[in-house]
């Protein structure tokens, strides 16, 4: 049942699936990149851990608290960047940022589930929720670049 089609553009089924069943939840052990980030205006928080080997993200996990949009975005992001090089992950982040701002984005890369977050751009108050995990990833990876 649905009472509002405007809302359906935001709360897509796949987003709710990631919210309910987050992928890569937890904290990596051993040597890893560790990033904590808050959204001070709303209290959302993410703890992201990334394992980087030879310029490649071999594993990623997250923990945190927040709304469906911020947590599903974190879940999707960890899935998407695993196995990617630092450059590829940062490129993906740029594409995501463009998508959030409603700009034309590079569609040559298959975004998979992330595509479902496109509707967030129609809800300006929620864009920061969606970008929190991505900002954390950028912060962590910028420290890794030579």
């Amino acid at each position: 049942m649905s009472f509002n089609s405007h809302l359906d553009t935001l709360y897509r089924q796949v987003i709710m699936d990631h919210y309910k069943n987050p992928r890569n939840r937890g904290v990596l052990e051993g040597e890893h990149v560790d990033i904590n980030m808050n959204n001070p205006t709303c209290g959302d928080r993410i703890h992201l851990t990334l394992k980087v080997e030879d310029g490649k993200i071999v594993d990623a996990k997250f923990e945190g608290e927040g709304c469906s949009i911020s947590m599903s975005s974190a879940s999707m992001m960890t899935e998407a960047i695993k196995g990617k090089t630092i450059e590829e992950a940062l490129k993906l982040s740029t594409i995501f940022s463009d998508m959030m701002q409603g700009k034309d984005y590079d569609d040559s890369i298959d975004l998979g589930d992330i595509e479902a977050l496109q509707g967030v751009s129609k809800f300006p108050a929620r864009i920061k929720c969606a970008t929190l995990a991505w900002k954390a990833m950028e912060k962590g990876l910028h420290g890794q670049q030579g």
Partner: protein
Amino acid sequence: MNVKELRQLFPILDQQVNGKPLVYLDSAATSQKPLPVIEAIDNYYRQYNSNVHRGVHTLGTKATDAYEGARDKVRRFIGAASTEEIIFTRGTTTAINLVAASYGRAHVREGDEIVITYMEHHSNIIPWQQVAKQTGATLKYIPLQPDGTIRLEDVEQTVTPNTKIVAVMHVSNVLGTINPVKEIARIAHKHGAVVVVDGAQSTPHMKVNVQDIDCDFYAFSGHKMCGPTGIGVLYGKKRLLEQMEPVEFGGEMIDFVGLYESTWKELPWKFEGGTPIIAGAIGLGAAIDFLEQVGLDHIAEHEHRLAQYALEQLATIEGLTIYGPKERAGLVTFNIEDVHPHDVATVLDAEGIAVRAGHHCAQPLMKWLNVTATARASFYLYNTEEEIDALVSALKKTKEYFSYVF
């Protein structure tokens, strides 16, 4: 005036949001502005915009009269003895910071205590954290009861002869708790401490008399009481304000300026460096006239009825938790099981209903409540029972919507 007539004075309320009639339930964040306030500001800029306290010309005199006239309206409104005790500031935050920076740093020493409560807004926490850090004083918290109220015996326990400042909010912006500030002031004074009251959530909604409370400082904001943003008030007892040094220096606040030394104007102007917030003060004066015309007792009664009705109706929603005591000011903070408050606020917005979601600038209180965020519906003189019905019905839909998508 009945609510229907009152609403006609608030042009902003007559609009559709996302295709639904706007239901504005976020007045604790900022209130809407009635026509008399909008017109007073418009009138000032159209007819007598001028700087105050300096021009010999006619417009300057008119502007000064209106600005100082607003100060006297504030004095009367909160029952202060003299306009010397009324300082215009940018808002509650600036007012509390002024007390902390001036009175706090001058009177608090290492080993002293500053006492606040777990329910304070960040603006009544951080200024005191800073004073404690700078002076080596200890910051102590009065604990809360499970229902979000303060017991006087806990105040008695926390305040000691080492306590120099007790800072407490009059009404909680999250719990709606109305704190016994008069009794707290009595206990603090017994130990020689001064009392700073954050009146941001009380002044717009109930009769406040600073002499009756016998607080030493009282701070509030214009924009939460039908006035414009950017104007607020610090009330302080004359005896204390006289001893205090200004925190901002420059034009307007001086008596005599030499090459190496200067002296200050008398109260209240020594605390109002720079061109003051003239239009803001005039707007606040108009807001006070408006609130007095409606009647503060009438407003308090109306909001009490709305809050009790909201508590009753929200209790019918399964899985909804309400925070704070039953006897409360006109706001209700809540969470719905398994739906994050941001998601609640987004779904409500799609229904035209404006509520606040987040930590409400009270992170220590959120920690005490053991939540990261909550949703809050807050009421004012223009809200109706029908709007609460709309809220309840939209919350029921929210629950259904999220159980569907799950």
